[in-house]
């Protein structure tokens, strides 16, 4: 009888372990599927095909200023010289659309930086447009009828000819990492959005960390226990569960409409996100303070330390790892947030890289949203690439939290 019972308990134990393992495997495989499919879709975003063109500036008259040079014309002439047999105007138009419209600005920037190239012949790499680029990457099915693909038969011939000339190179897309947003997928990058996110998070940290920590210290060590503090406590816990969009509405009403702050700036974004992060920081700081054994506090008081000395010399240093962890987790949540930013105008097309808290900026999650909503096919890869970067940054942030906790952890 007892043996039977024993076996039964053993089986239950085994089953329980198996359930746990199955859950773990399911969770891990889901994560693997998400990351894997993202990574697979993101592949085409990391490289770009470029065309090496010979630019002939030897005939440039010396008296024209750098801005007046017809860079578009120079690129066009160089491209046309590779196809001397094409004379039809509309075909020439189509041919000139194989290369990115950004090329002429790149050439202009290059000449402004290196004016010595005027009056010379030199080689210059230009980007292909997103459609030509996808063709080289093998995403255009040439077996489909001409009307059903973005690259028609003429263009296929031209692109293949250019490739056979050995002028087409496959390069890592530096635009993706160094540019702001753009309408042209081959030019668009997430650097502007990443900087915007970092500035916003910096504002959030600067505001929410001291306010949160001091609130927690006061509530934990100084506040009298009464109905009012109970009420405040309930409200703080409640705020932690409020949907983030509500904070966006609040930000719109208070900071923008009442205080007249500008829209689309990281300052307002940081203010809104710090309202969102505050409850998390207060709650975790309080529990970190509570986990410091009362004996430490009593010993300090017995040695004649004042309340303030107890807090700053003993309680806070001991609770710091917990406070850091809570803060970082709160910030990580704010980092991935896009809903409240929608209402304060940070869901916007912004090309320039923000440089201060009052420059218009967008955030990384918002950039993902904007790209995911764009019709151009090449933005699908960009969306996935930006998502991977966002996940990567979050992993780094959380790793920092783990390391800080491990490093400063005090065992009682």
């Amino acid at each position, binding site marked *: 009888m007892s043996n039977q019972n024993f076996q039964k308990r053993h089986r239950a134990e085994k089953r329980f372990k198996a359930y746990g393992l199955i859950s773990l495997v399911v969770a891990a495989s889901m994560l693997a599927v998400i990351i894997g499919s993202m990574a697979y879709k993101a592949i085409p975003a990391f490289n770009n095909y470029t065309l090496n063109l010979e630019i002939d500036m030897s005939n440039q008259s010396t008296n024209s200023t750098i801005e007046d040079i017809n860079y578009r014309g120079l690129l066009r002439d160089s491209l046309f010289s590779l196809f001397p047999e094409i004379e039809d105007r509309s075909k020439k138009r189509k041919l000139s659309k194989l290369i990115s419209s950004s090329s002429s600005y790149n050439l202009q920037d290059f000449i402004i930086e290196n004016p010595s190239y005027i009056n010379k012949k030199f080689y210059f790499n230009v980007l292909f447009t997103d459609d030509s680029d996808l063709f080289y990457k093998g995403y255009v099915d040439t077996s489909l009828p001409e009307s059903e693909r973005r690259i028609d038969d003429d263009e296929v011939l031209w692109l293949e000819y250019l490739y056979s000339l050995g002028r087409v190179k496959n390069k890592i897309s530096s635009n993706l990492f160094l540019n702001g947003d753009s309408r042209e997928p081959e030019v668009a990058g997430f650097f502007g959005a990443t900087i915007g996110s970092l500035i916003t998070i910096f504002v959030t940290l600067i505001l929410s960390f001291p306010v949160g920590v001091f609130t927690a210290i006061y509530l934990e060590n100084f506040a009298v226990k009464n109905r009012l503090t109970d009420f405040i406590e309930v409200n703080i816990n409640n705020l932690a569960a409020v949907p983030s969009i509500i904070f966006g509405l609040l930000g719109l009403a208070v900071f923008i409409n009442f205080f007249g702050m500008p829209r689309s*700036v990281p300052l307002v974004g940081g203010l809104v996100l710090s309202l969102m992060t505050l409850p998390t920081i207060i709650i975790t700081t309080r529990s970190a303070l509570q986990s410091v054994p009362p004996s430490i506090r009593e010993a300090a008081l017995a040695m004649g330390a004042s309340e303030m000395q107890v807090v700053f010399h003993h309680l806070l240093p001991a609770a710091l790892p917990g406070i850091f962890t809570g803060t970082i987790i709160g910030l990580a949540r704010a980092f991935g947030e896009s809903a409240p930013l929608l209402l304060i105008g940070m*869901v916007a097309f912004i*090309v320039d890289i923000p440089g201060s808290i009052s420059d218009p900026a967008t955030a990384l999650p918002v950039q993902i949203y904007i790209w995911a909503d764009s019709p151009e096919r090449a933005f699908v890869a960009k969306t996935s690439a930006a998502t991977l970067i966002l996940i990567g940054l979050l992993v780094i942030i959380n790793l920092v939290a783990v390391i800080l906790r491990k490093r400063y952890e005090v065992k009682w």
Partner: protein
Amino acid sequence: MKNIFKLFVTTVSISLVASFLLSADADDQIKIVGSSTVFPFSTAVAEEFGRRSIYKTPIVEQTGSGGGMKLFCSGIGSQHPDIANSSRRIKSKEFKNCTEKGIKIIEIKIGYDGIALANSKKGHLFELTTRDIFLALAARIPLDSDSSQLQKNPHQTWKDVNPDLPGIKIEVLGPPPTSGTRDAFVELAMVQGAKSFPALDQLGRSSKDGKIEFKKIAHTIREDGAFIEAGENDNLIIQKLIQNPNAIGIFGFSFLDQNTDKVQGSIVNSALPTFDNILQGKYPISRSLFFYVKKNHIRMKPSLKEYVKEFTSDSAMGPYGYLIEKGLIPLSDDEYMKYKTTSDELIELTFE
């Protein structure tokens, strides 16, 4: 510890002071709000403008047509947007709100956008009429073609709607009611379909109450699962269509144009949703796209006039401009000239 604390307090106070000093914005960067349909075109112009001119690249916000108009009409001054994009014409109510604030508006029509009903290339090519669309998607439909009696929409398959259509279950993925695409689809396809019933058409013309009743019938889309609200993201709708070859999706022409290898546009009133058909007005479900400029801001922001000039230039909005590459259907020559003059001479919009 004490030092760290002091350092921290100093940094915080310096940053706070700096932030409030910096928050006064005095630049003349153009601010644009509004429709997500116009967004790709507006941003393309903004980017080109930023590269070519001495001014900063304008900020373009995606707020939806209605939301954009609300912000636009909120007042005059640098904290209010300079331009509102819209995938429909300004409503008389909005116009009134705007003029009450002393805002003077310049209206520019930029072109057209077709709304496609498309399904996977693996599926059947649908040949629909606006009447079929109404019969398939309205919540209530007439008992028969001459009756004014209404019934709850009983149709389960396309064959129930029209015997010429295949016996495939009706599954339509479309945008939610907050979307401008949904507004335009209802206004253009459903209303036209409802008008093909003489009794309903008469109801709509009869009286004020009849008009409201007609609107209710034509605008209400069924909620029994045949019409599925698939969110604002058109790329997502296309992905769902590939997985389910029998489903039809409703989205803008530019998305069809980018995905012709995966999906096919259905024929509506014997016209395919192609560039030429929409341009010539043969395809019935197409709408006009606009942007509205705050004339009061032109003097204080010199860049504003330049931006409008860039947008209405031949190289942008013209029949072979870069916006056409992005999927915009251009205006006819006469209309183009009209709006070019409007923008050059800054002619104010008046509502009749």
